[in-house]
């Protein structure tokens, strides 16, 4: 299976295709539910209610911010945009759509569905840093981070990738095959979410007692493996919807290619969880449930870049490699780089997404595709990380991201909500606060 070459302007969708993509996008929120449950399960029991309420609030804030401002900057493929003319080339860098979703009802079918896809994508991207900041990020600060991400950062990169921006036009302007391909948001959702998570973790710092002076990192395991693993199953349904809908919207894949995209999604996740199961069993003697969930999710993330492009066997191999890389990277980030990321989002969404984007380029049959993918990666890391760091740093000056030490000690549930998620259970004392 070779990738369909996306056209610069959207193709008209048949009624059947429109109905199919709409139905798929109505299932995509299951990915949000899955990620929210995984984030909650990987945090501590004394912050569980705050984590899940935060997920709801963040989705709400991200969607409103995107509707009010972000959708204007994201634009659509057939809508107006801001273009720079430099070095004899047009650089389409920012959308110029109507404010407040004006004229949405009269837009083309493709534009309406693209916008719905982006609404769900921005909500998913905003949930990623919330998981990394678990157990110490304040609810209001998490919402502010989501608002900035949804109103300013995500629209910029979504426009470049999905709305005829300069990354998608690399093929036309610089003869790089089909331009940067990101069929289901491996870059625009996951890599962007991961760099946001890294910025949040760097600014907020680690949980108290995580990295004691002169000692090893303290293990702070997730409090509910059932949430984590059920979240993985929910996420699968949402990812299938994202990957198949994305294949139609951004790759113009024919209906006959969609079952393969769905099978590829399943194979990538299955290969990844199998590999993580084996790696953790070899390293620790028994498989680790949290890391296996991370492996499963990294396989899904990698499939966001590759499901519509590669063969089933290639998809399985991509998943296997993602599943080996993820647990190792989680360990390296924690032990060698002292990054306290309770949800493992930086490894899962960052490394999984980057690996998927590289694999999509390496396995594409057209020459130049690999280079287009590398340029896209350079843009997301080289501009994305400094931009989100700067914006979140400004947010932190105005509205501190981190709760005070008392909040961390008693738990974010009591501190921010006045009541715990499990009032009938005795919460264990944390030795790290002695």
């Amino acid at each position, binding site marked *: 299976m070779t990738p369909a070459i996306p056209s610069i302007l959207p193709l008209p969708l048949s009624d059947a295709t429109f109905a199919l993509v709409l139905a798929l996008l109505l299932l995509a929120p299951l990915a949000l539910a899955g990620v929210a449950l995984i984030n909650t399960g990987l945090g501590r029991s004394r912050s569980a209610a705050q984590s899940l309420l935060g997920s709801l609030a963040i989705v709400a804030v991200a969607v409103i911010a995107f509707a009010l401002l972000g959708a204007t900057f994201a634009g659509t493929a057939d809508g107006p945009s801001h273009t720079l003319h*430099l*070095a004899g*080339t047009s650089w389409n860098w920012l959308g110029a759509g109507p404010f407040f979703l004006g004229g949405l009802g009269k837009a083309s079918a493709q534009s309406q569905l693209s916008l719905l896809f982006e609404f769900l994508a921005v909500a998913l991207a905003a949930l990623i840093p919330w998981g990394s900041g678990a157990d110490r990020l304040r609810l209001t600060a998490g919402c502010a981070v989501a608002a900035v991400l949804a109103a300013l950062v995500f629209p910029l990169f979504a426009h470049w990738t999905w709305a005829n921006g300069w990354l998608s036009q*690399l093929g036309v302007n*610089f*003869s*790089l095959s089909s331009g940067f391909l990101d069929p289901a948001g491996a870059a625009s959702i996951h890599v962007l979410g991961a760099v946001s998570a890294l910025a949040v973790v*760097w600014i907020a*710092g*680690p949980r108290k007692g995580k*990295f*004691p*002076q002169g000692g090893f990192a303290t293990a702070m395991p997730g409090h509910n493996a059932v949430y984590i693993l059920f979240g993985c199953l929910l996420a699968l349904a949402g990812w299938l919807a994202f990957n198949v809908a994305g294949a139609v919207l951004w790759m113009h894949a024919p209906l006959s290619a969609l079952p393969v995209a769905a099978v590829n999604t399943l194979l990538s996740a299955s290969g990844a969880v199998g590999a993580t199961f084996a790696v953790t069993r070899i390293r620790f003697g028994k498989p680790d449930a949290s890391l296996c969930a991370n492996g499963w999710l990294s396989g899904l993330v990698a499939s966001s870049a590759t499901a519509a492009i590669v063969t089933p066997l290639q998809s399985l191999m991509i998943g296997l490699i993602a599943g080996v890389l993820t647990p190792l990277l989680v360990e390296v980030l924690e032990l060698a*780089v*002292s*990054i306290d990321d309770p949800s493992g989002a930086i490894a899962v969404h960052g490394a999984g997404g980057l690996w998927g984007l590289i694999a999509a380029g390496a396995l594409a049959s057209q*020459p*130049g595709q690999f*280079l287009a993918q*590398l*340029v896209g*990666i*350079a*843009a997301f*890391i*080289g*501009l994305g*990380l*400094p931009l989100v*760091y700067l914006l979140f740093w400004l947010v932190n000056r105005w509205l501190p991201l981190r709760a005070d030490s008392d909040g961390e000690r008693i738990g974010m549930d009591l501190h921010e909500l006045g009541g715990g998620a499990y009032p009938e259970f005795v919460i264990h004392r944390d030795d790290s606060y002695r």
Partner: protein
Amino acid sequence: MKYAGLLVLPAGFFLAIAALVLFPATSAGARAGFVLCGLAVEALGLVVAARGHLEAQSHKAHGEDRA
């Protein structure tokens, strides 16, 4: 040091873009080399930023221990 690393990241990006502008499509090898150099610069920036973060965290933990 962390901020220096973060400032190096856009430099790597502009190096990758320069490759596309400076070299024609026929010079695929030179283009690829420049883009890879850009990514290497970004990787360097990430390493510097991570080391800066480690240092800052170490100072902070030391200060907390004294307090």
